[in-house]
């Protein structure tokens, strides 16, 4: 089934790669375009199954399925794919870019290298450069990937979701989350990139209005790391969601409202400020 009834599925050819995308573009749709970039081991469908339709009710949504080419993976190789899809599908006006996890690093890289394409930048559960806590988890991940993928499924479930989210579910629900874990092709390369990718020094040149969103209970990319994006971006505001790393899975509706509010009026919260929590 398509991610959304209005989504057209297509391919962009970038070098030797065919990069799939999902685009709700319809003739005469003059609404703002939101570009969604997923994270490690994901795809538009697995990371944005709820967020995509929520956004599609208000915006044109264009989501990219990142490909992992042979050889060593670099941030630039991923950024090039997103740029290629934008050039093919939405060249006319700057777009609102939303990146999640590794996708947040890609989004920031895009905004730094092609400022003219980016109307606004939303970075969800991203980071600047992995610290020792993150690299320790990354090492455990690789060892389990080589030795025991069943155990890796449990480990990843335990680290991906916030503890309140997991604790609020029954044993059968947890088992279903574990069973649903897959390790798609290219994931090990992406995990290697997570450990070495580095945005140090590149944020200061990003002029697009930015929103940095952290998961309060994120164990993969602790909020203290995500906050550094806020520290480095010259035109950024900061918001916290009470979730783990799996923000688009745990709190899609809250994420949607934050993104939509920001895209409607990027200056509603002035730069350098922490956003008021949404009234509940």
């Amino acid at each position: 089934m398509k991610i959304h009834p209005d989504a057209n599925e297509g391919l962009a050819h970038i070098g030797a790669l065919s990069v799939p995308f999902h685009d709700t573009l319809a003739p005469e749709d003059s609404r703002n375009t939101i570009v969604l970039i997923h994270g490690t081991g994901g795809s538009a469908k697995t990371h944005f199954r709820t967020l995509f339709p929520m956004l599609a009710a208000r915006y044109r949504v264009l989501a990219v399925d990142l490909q992992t080419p042979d050889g060593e993976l670099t941030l630039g190789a991923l950024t090039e794919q997103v740029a290629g899809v934008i050039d093919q599908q939405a060249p006319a006006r700057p777009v609102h870019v939303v990146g999640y996890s590794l996708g947040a690093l890609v989004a920031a890289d895009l905004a730094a290298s092609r400022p003219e394409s980016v109307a606004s930048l939303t970075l969800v559960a991203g980071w600047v450069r992995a610290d020792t806590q993150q690299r320790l988890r990354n090492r455990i991940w690789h060892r389990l990937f080589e030795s025991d993928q069943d155990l890796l499924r449990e480990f990843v479930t335990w680290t991906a979701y916030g503890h309140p989210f997991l604790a609020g579910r029954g044993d059968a629900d947890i088992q279903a989350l574990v069973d649903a874990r897959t390790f798609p092709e290219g994931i090990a390369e992406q995990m290697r990139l997570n450990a070495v990718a580095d945005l140090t020094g590149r944020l200061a040149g990003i002029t697009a209005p930015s929103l940095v969103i952290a998961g309060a209970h994120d164990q993969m990319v602790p909020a203290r790391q995500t906050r550094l994006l806020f520290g480095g971006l010259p035109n950024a505001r900061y918001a916290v969601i009470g979730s783990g790393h799996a923000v688009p899975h745990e709190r899609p509706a809250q994420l949607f409202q934050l993104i939509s509010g920001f895209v409607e009026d990027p200056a509603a919260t002035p730069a350098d400020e922490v956003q008021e929590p949404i009234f509940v």
Partner: protein
Amino acid sequence: MESTPMGHPASDSPVDVIIVGTGFGGLGMGAKLAREGKRSFIILERDEEVGGTWRDNHYPGAACDVPSHLYSFSFRPNPEWSRMFAPQQEILDYLRSVARDENLLERMVFGAEVTGALWDEAAALWKVTTPKGEFAARTLVTAVGHLSEPKLPVIDGLSDFSGHLFHSAQWNDEIDLTGKRVGIVGSGATAIQVLPEVAKVAGEVVVFQRSAPYVTPRPDRAYTEEEKGLFRKMPEVMQELREEMFWSNEERYAQRRGTPTLVSAAAQVALDHLHRQIEDTELRRKLTPDYTFGCKRVLKSSDYYPTFTQDHVHLETGGITRVEGNRVLGRDGGSHELDVIIACTGFEATDLPIAYRIFGRDGQPLSERWANGMQAYATTAVHGFPNLWIINGPNTGLGHNSAVYIAEAQIDYIMAAVNFRDEAGVPALEVSGEAEDAFMDRVDHLAQGTVWLEGGCSSWYVDHRNGRLTTLWPEPAYTFRQVNAPFDPEPYLTWSPDEAGEHILAGVR
């Protein structure tokens, strides 16, 4: 404010605000006014007690189906909720404590059913008639509920039923159901709570179902003493829990937007639940809904389906032709002799009785303005009805989140409107007809493509008179607050006496 010896406020001097109703809506409005402390107000209630929905619906098994830490006022968290979904008595006790602790009891007049409310233009006052006397106020806020007028099914001979007949919201405690033959008409939110309880004592139970609901598991559990202790000592933990509940309900909104992947995943949860709990294929078939998930209220119960596996519980899906004596005759030729019929058939939600009792400018009844279906600007103000604001009226229902959240957004709006009016020094605010129509066009537009209009079911969400979604808000709950809580004077008109003594309408700014 003066009080009469009988304890209720004097009826001869006008007050700033009259609130009608003492459910979540009326109590919330009263609490905000009392906390602000700037205005005189009274609260009129037709019953002898506060509580609204939660006073009337005391049937066995009654409980909320939005978690209690969310289904309560944001400004009055309650660390004592015993369970995730508190039973009716606890919710009623909570509302009583709100009335008491917010100092609202002394402003209430009980037994005061509003039979007429007339806008007196010359005096710029609402004149309100009740059996307890006449009251006058500059501002009228109705919070009379949208699920407060019980609706009985239209069945030939039902009123001559020789056994006992009552509606679930008017439960007859005099009747002991032990060993009785009981018919339950309906299979909605109330029936699924009533059935398991009635089946525990009745000799025989027959459920007359018109259309099978989607039922999902109800993850109810008791809070531990440790949890309640923590809630008392660190209220912010309750707030975190509330947010978790709110956003997880909001997520369900996406299923209502007609996104096939999400709708089918959500429907599957309900169908799996049915399969796990019912083995009999014929029974499964009868209990399987025939419309799109979410078109009618999605229900939560973990003990409804299993009740049907008991030998003394029967499910009739053929429809009722008529009632004769103590027998209910089915369209398929079958008949059931019954001692008691309980109508779990819901409420009058689209044609609100209060609309026939409110008369605006030039004596126009609200029911006339709403003859083709109700509508209001920002869900609360109506052209032709100055200084009237309606809580839980048109487009305030939610299929997926807490009604209290909605009422609080409206209360914030009303507080801001009244404050604006008084600071501007104008006697009355009246929304323009154009602004009201434009707002409704926007709501209509948002409703397009939602499951309520396109899910192939008939429900009380849609007004059959105009095919519009008039009871439900078609967007997420947070969007309701974003759109309807901030007050903007722009669309309002006010009047001032001109030299000829006639009134002219002019934009407030």
